[in-house]
């Protein structure tokens, strides 16, 4: 371990709560998003236990409705959306581009405080009456009829939105202005490209959902008629505004995970990623097309047939860049030198689960099929494959991959491989039966169901218990490894990125000397410094071509 690094450069609670070091702020985020993941996870466990019997095994209908609502709000707004960008993105983007910090270090800290304030409002809502509107807050249920603590929740999410906006802004400015010499746009790690695309969505989409929820809150508090038809409002307008953000929000969750996978795969296949420009471009394409597919959530609201046709068509288009990524990742494996380290297992698990999640999106984008499977468990299964099978698998894989950089120590290898397999198996057992449940016609958000659906529900709950183990294992051994793990050294894999050129853990200023980039991304052949079999340096680069 290096003598001095960002973790031991100063001590005391103030040195953390007032830090402007992006790496320390990332750890603050790690703590708080893990807290919300725990809350969301406990709620999910209660949901699955409740659904063991057709009449509901655990709680009353009111409580069940609060369980799934609070599960959704905690997981989406306070775990999934910030998880990879605010933890890994925060920690890694400056390191990856060879910068000392983000462009606006104090705004970076402000993002975390805003998140915490929003989080407190939402926890207040959970603690004082709970929330029973569904995480989608459809009006007029949320704005008029619900008796639960809607107002503090929408205020909390409104506040939290600014955190997202500021993080996105910070990333974009940083990526534009703070790249090290030689770090051209097409030498950027794909993780950075993915975060650039994510940041665009955060900046452009978040204001819309913030205002929309504020309008619903105003309708609730002051009876202003925005969405309530009795006051001249339009309940469907809410859905348009809500999904204008909340569909792209899916890409806020999945794009950074795709970025993580695009780092892990070339590292553990030890070869350049196949189709770099196509993977980078597909991130931008997903972010752009992702903004014009929102009304595919509304095919059975009675929206015009022409609108439905348009949005179905555009939804099929957005599938193409996702498919491009999957094909390129798979091709990268060909003739690689593939190690079976835990991050690679997570990454390959991601590809499998994301592929199923993405392909089942084709079913839902299909107008004729959607009239049957919309709002059933098919949808629940689909988006969990994307958000949990995809985003969370990517997040956990990324945490493993960069754990040696963050803490300076290695996690236990055998246990972590076992955890990756457990997660994969548990996940599929939990959510695959839900596709069948959905096609059979079980609607979502049901606290009780006809007895013919029981077998599949029991299977799903059994899977959830394995899945829970798959999450608890890494939490336990990663915590253990912070003290007892093997010392990692600067570049244990080895990997090609700039973040691996500095100490583990890095010094507060990230690099002792400003790095200069002379190599192409994911190039193992011309990097003798990595100590691998091949490795002759490139001929000296011709300078002067910018």
């Amino acid at each position, binding site marked *: 371990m290096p003598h001095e690094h960002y973790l031991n450069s100063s001590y005391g609670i103030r040195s953390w709560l007032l830090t402007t070091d992006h790496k320390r702020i990332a750890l603050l985020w790690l703590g708080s998003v893990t807290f919300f993941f725990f809350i969301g996870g406990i709620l999910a466990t209660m949901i699955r236990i409740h659904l063991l019997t057709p009449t509901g095994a655990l709680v009353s209908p009111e409580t069940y409705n609060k369980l799934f609502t609070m599960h959704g709000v905690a997981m989406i707004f306070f775990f999934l959306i910030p998880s990879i960008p605010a933890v890994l993105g925060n920690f890694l983007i400056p390191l990856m581009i060879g910068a000392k910090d983000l462009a606006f270090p104090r705004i970076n800290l402000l993002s975390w405080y805003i998140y915490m304030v929003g989080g407190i409002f939402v926890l207040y809502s959970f603690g004082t009456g709970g929330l029973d509107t569904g995480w989608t807050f459809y009006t007029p249920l949320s704005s008029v009829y619900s008796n639960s603590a809607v107002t503090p929740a929408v205020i909390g999410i409104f506040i939290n939105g600014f955190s997202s906006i500021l993080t996105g802004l910070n990333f974009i400015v940083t990526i534009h202005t703070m790249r090290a010499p030689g770090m051209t746009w097409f030498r950027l790690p794909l993780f950075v490209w993915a975060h650039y695309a994510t940041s665009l969505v955060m900046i452009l989409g978040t204001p819309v959902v913030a205002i929309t929820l504020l309008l619903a809150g105003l309708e609730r508090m002051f009876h202003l008629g925005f969405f309530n038809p009795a006051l001249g409002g339009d309940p469907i307008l809410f859905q348009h505004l809500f999904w204008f953000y909340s569909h792209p929000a899916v890409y806020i969750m999945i794009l950074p995970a795709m970025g993580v996978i695009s780092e892990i795969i070339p590292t553990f296949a030890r070869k350049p990623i196949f189709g770099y420009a196509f993977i980078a471009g597909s991130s931008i394409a997903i972010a752009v097309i992702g903004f014009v597919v929102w009304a595919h959530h509304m095919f059975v609201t009675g929206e015009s047939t022409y609108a439905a046709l348009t949005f179905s068509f555009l939804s099929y288009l957005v599938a193409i860049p996702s498919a491009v990524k999957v094909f390129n990742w798979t091709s990268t494996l060909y003739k690689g030198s593939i190690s079976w380290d835990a991050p690679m297992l997570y990454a390959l698990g991601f590809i499998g689960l994301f592929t199923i999640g993405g392909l089942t999106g084709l079913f839902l984008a299909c*107008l004729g099929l959607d009239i049957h499977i919309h709002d059933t468990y098919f949808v629940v299964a689909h988006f969990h494959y994307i958000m949990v099978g995809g985003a969370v698998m990517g997040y956990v894989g990324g945490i493993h991959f960069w754990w040696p950089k963050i803490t300076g120590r290695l996690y236990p290898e055998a246990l972590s491989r076992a955890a990756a397999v457990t997660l994969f198996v548990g996940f599929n057992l939990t959510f695959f039966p839900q596709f069948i449940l959905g096609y059979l*016609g079980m609607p979502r958000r049901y606290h*009780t169901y006809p007895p013919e659906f029981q077998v599949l529900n029991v299977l799903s709950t059994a899977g959830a218990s394995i899945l829970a183990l798959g999450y608890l294992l890494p939490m336990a051994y990663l915590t253990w490894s912070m003290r007892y793990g093997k010392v990692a050294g600067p570049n244990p894999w080895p990997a090609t990125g700039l973040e691996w050129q500095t100490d583990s853990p890095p010094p507060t200023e990230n690099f002792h000397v400003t790095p200069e980039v002379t190599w192409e991304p994911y190039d193992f052949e011309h990097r003798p410094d990595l100590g691998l079999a091949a490795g002759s340096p490139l001929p000296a680069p011709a300078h002067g071509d910018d």
Partner: protein
Amino acid sequence: MQSQLPIYPEQASNFAPQVDALMVFITAICVFFALAITAAIVIFFFKFHRKKPDDVGVAFEGDSRLEAAWMVIPLILAMAMFGWGAVVYVDYRHAPQDTLDVYVIGKQWMWKAQQPNGLKEINELHVPVNRNIRLILASEDVIHDFFVPAFRVKMDVVPGHYNTMWFRPTKPGRYHFFCSQYCGTNHAIMGGWVTVMEPSDYAAWLSGSSGVSANPVLAGEKFFAEKTCITCHVADGTGRAPSLNGLYGAPVLLADGSTVTADESYIRESILVPNAKIVAGYQPLMPTFQGQLTEEQILALTAYIKSLQSRPVPAKGSGIAPPTGKK
């Protein structure tokens, strides 16, 4: 009977085989791709497993022909899914002419259905087999959704306007229907049964269940007088408002020069928000009835106004657009 663990619900409407065929088509394509990708990953995973710790892989930069192929081929398949899905959907969203219309009202947390003769049911819906059924859906409070898995159809029930859905039951029997748009505490028990009957049984059932309700047309006629609609909407076209004779289904010429077809939604809107669409040649004088009528009263008024379809249309004083060549 199906097996203990079925993978699709019973097929009991015209849409069920169509939706299932779509399902099989998309599943086949997706299973092919999922298996191909999984097989490639598994084979590469073992075949190219690292032999020596310092081995590196063989570098390829990429291949633009390959990239083009795996963009174009999935795009073609996706367009096939889009096209076929669109055909089924457009059919579903356009009810045929010869439908049997049943009104369905959703409210927290029950369903009320009203047959054409006024017979009312709660959490039950009786329909004849092999007849095109159109449901006209209204909500008293929040958004609900009427979903019949065995028919493979659903439609949101949105407060403030009517949605419609249609299907043709093809098999007598009893089938679950559910509310599939989350609507609050008892969302999960807001369901019931659709009973599909032979036409003769249906007719017997309709006439047999006597005295349950009043005829909606008669009830609507009563409201039409009580709410003083009749003062202005004079049948012979001499009133301050257009005659409603022959209105239903006809094109109406509006003050802004456009025309609109007088369907249930138009009638409903004209009752609740009269100034939204002003008939050409008339003043915006009518007061709003928003908040003063229940959904059932609106349905009764609508049923009455629809019943005026066959009455003689006055030469002057009707809102109906004159039959010109113009669209």
